[in-house]
């Protein structure tokens, strides 16, 4: 007797809807086992992870703050993945955006520059992120080089470049030798939404990005092209859609969004440029994109959920001394379950009885 996969006649919409929920359920079940192995009370740990952050307004704001870069990057990545272009280097585009935007902030520091500074930072960051993403896209389209590998290599390059700047030319002379720029001037800082809180304008921008992506994918020809090229490349060719052009376009857009997210993070919650400005947002956003079914609204929900795991992880570390890496393990396991459950949209399990196999003579 053997369990085998069988292709469904058509994709199951029921499973498409419930599979993220099943995946989250399975992940939590796995986490319970992991907490038990670590010698922590699983119920208390789950409470610290998923309930406690939802009970006070400070944590709720933190969740929104953390979700902002995740959602913005994941929206861009979802466009790439829908078009079957594998941008894995959002982390690098995020860092380069942060660097490019910080450039103006560093140059105008201490001068009486006006309110134009922040918008210019945003534009520069988006442009730099887009250009940085275009490197792998053009290498792919012109030379056929794997965009997966090139975009990923550029993450390390961006990381080292940022490191060089904050240890060298941009280092704060009053920073006690720490590798960081000086705190940005108020005109170079993302405004807060709530007085005394941490919620900032970036969250609104993220919501606008979600809405724009929903309109692009649902209501425009370009969005239709992206989906067709990804889902049915042959049909797209017959339809006269240019797949290469879409790779360039989706990479540029996702790079721009990642770059924008980078400067929003630096000019918002962080307040200055330093190494380690991203706890792996670019990679976590890949999970957000898949958990959100590559759908803008889904990504918004998934982004909030993964932000919850970051905040919950921090609280669990403080309250129960649970290592911070548990959050990364959690996110990895979640991605596995999401992908596995998605398999059931296209396939179903079937039991094959041995006598039937013999009768048909395999081997």
């Amino acid at each position, binding site marked *: 007797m053997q369990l*085998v*996969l*069988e*292709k469904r006649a058509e994709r199951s919409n029921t499973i498409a809807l419930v599979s993220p929920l099943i995946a989250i359920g399975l992940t939590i079940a796995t986490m319970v086992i992991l907490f038990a192995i670590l010698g922590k009370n699983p119920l208390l740990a789950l409470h610290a992870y998923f309930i406690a952050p939802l009970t006070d307004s400070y944590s709720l704001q933190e969740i929104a703050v953390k979700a902002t870069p995740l959602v913005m990057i994941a929206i861009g990545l979802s466009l790439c993945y829908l078009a079957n272009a*594998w941008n*894995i280097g959002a982390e690098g585009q995020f860092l380069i955006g942060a660097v490019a935007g910080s450039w103006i902030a560093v140059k105008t520091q201490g001068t009486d520059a006006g309110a134009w500074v922040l918008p210019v930072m945003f534009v520069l960051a988006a442009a730099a992120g887009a250009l940085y993403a275009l*490197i792998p896209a053009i*290498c792919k389209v*012109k*030379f*056929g*080089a*794997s965009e*997966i*590998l*090139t975009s*990923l*290599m*550029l993450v*390390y*390059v961006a990381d*080292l*470049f940022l*490191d*060089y700047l904050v*240890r*060298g030319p941009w280092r704060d002379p009053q920073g006690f030798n720490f590798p960081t720029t000086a705190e940005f001037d108020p005109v170079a800082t993302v405004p807060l939404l709530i007085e005394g809180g941490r919620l900032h304008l970036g969250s609104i921008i993220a919501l606008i990005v979600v809405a724009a992506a929903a309109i692009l994918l649902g209501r425009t020809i370009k969005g239709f092209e992206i989906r067709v090229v990804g889902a049915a490349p042959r049909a797209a060719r017959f339809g006269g859609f240019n797949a290469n052009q879409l790779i360039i376009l989706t990479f540029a857009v996702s790079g721009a969004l990642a770059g924008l997210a980078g400067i929003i993070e630096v000019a918002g919650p962080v307040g200055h440029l330093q190494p380690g400005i991203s706890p792996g947002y670019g*990679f*976590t956003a*890949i*999970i957000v994109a*898949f958990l959100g079914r590559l759908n803008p609204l889904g990504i918004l929900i998934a982004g909030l959920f993964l932000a919850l795991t970051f905040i919950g992880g921090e609280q669990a570390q403080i309250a129960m001394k649970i*290592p*911070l*890496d*548990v*959050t*990364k*393990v*959690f*996110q*990895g*396991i979640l*991605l*596995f379950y999401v*992908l*596995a459950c*998605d*398999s059931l949209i*296209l*396939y179903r399990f079937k039991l*094959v009885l041995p006598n039937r*196999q013999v009768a*048909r003579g*395999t*081997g």
Partner: protein
Amino acid sequence: MELVEAIILAVLAASTPLLIAATGELVTERSGVLNLGVEGMMIVGAACGFAGAWLTGSIFIGALFGVVAGTLMSLIFALMALGLAVNQVATGLALTILGVGLSGLIGAGFVGERITPAVHLYIPGLTDIPLMGRVLFGEDAFVYFSVALVASVWWFLYRTRPGLILRACGDNHVSAHALGYPVLRIRTFAVMFGGACAGLAGAYLPLAYTPFFIPGMTAGRGWIALALVVFSSWRPGRLVVGAYLFGAVTILQLHAQGWGVGIPSQFMSALPYLATVIVLVLLSRARTGGSTAPAALGTVFVPDR
């Protein structure tokens, strides 16, 4: 002369983990499976390898821990990509994300600990030969193993029947299946072999390259190994050349810092990654007349019965 010798020794040491990991991935890809989780398997191999060696005091058992850890990780991949026919790119990424987390979790207790690294071979007389001796007869066991490994893989792929069948699965799984070969089972073994190699390559880092463990110590070597497989056009011979070239770039970067070249260290450190991008572009560009990749690489196969 001593400097030349030192550089060659350093290049071999830097190349060995790349060569081991890339050889495993080459077999995996030759069977038609693209496992992008090499970095994840390597980093777990590094943590488990160090843990094993630290707990038992034996480098060999440490290496074994690394191999087992890499294999177990690859089994998760096989279950997903082969058993459930999930997109291989996404699954490989998931494996790396999970691996980074697991490695941090396992390794957390070992940060700051030290072990005695793998001993280098010493044969009186032979090892003492100037220049040649240390390079040929004074390496650690991993270096010799890596050469033997890639040679055996070459022999297996091109001189044995199972090797032929494995390549057939990679080039045309439908035909291989029609001929009655168990494509998914063969691919599972190929994925496990790749995982074992990646785990060993990861374990090499704390067991022989440095005597300690730090989180994230693979630093993208798994991804460079993946690029090397492309570089080699899926041939073991060229893989050796590629791995040593990349080892050389890594060491060049380290030595240039030592020689006081007036370039910021971060730019030198970026060299291996930039070299990877450039090599990928040049190779893909040179390859007119179609790709040399296994024809079924990365495609999902669900046998109909």
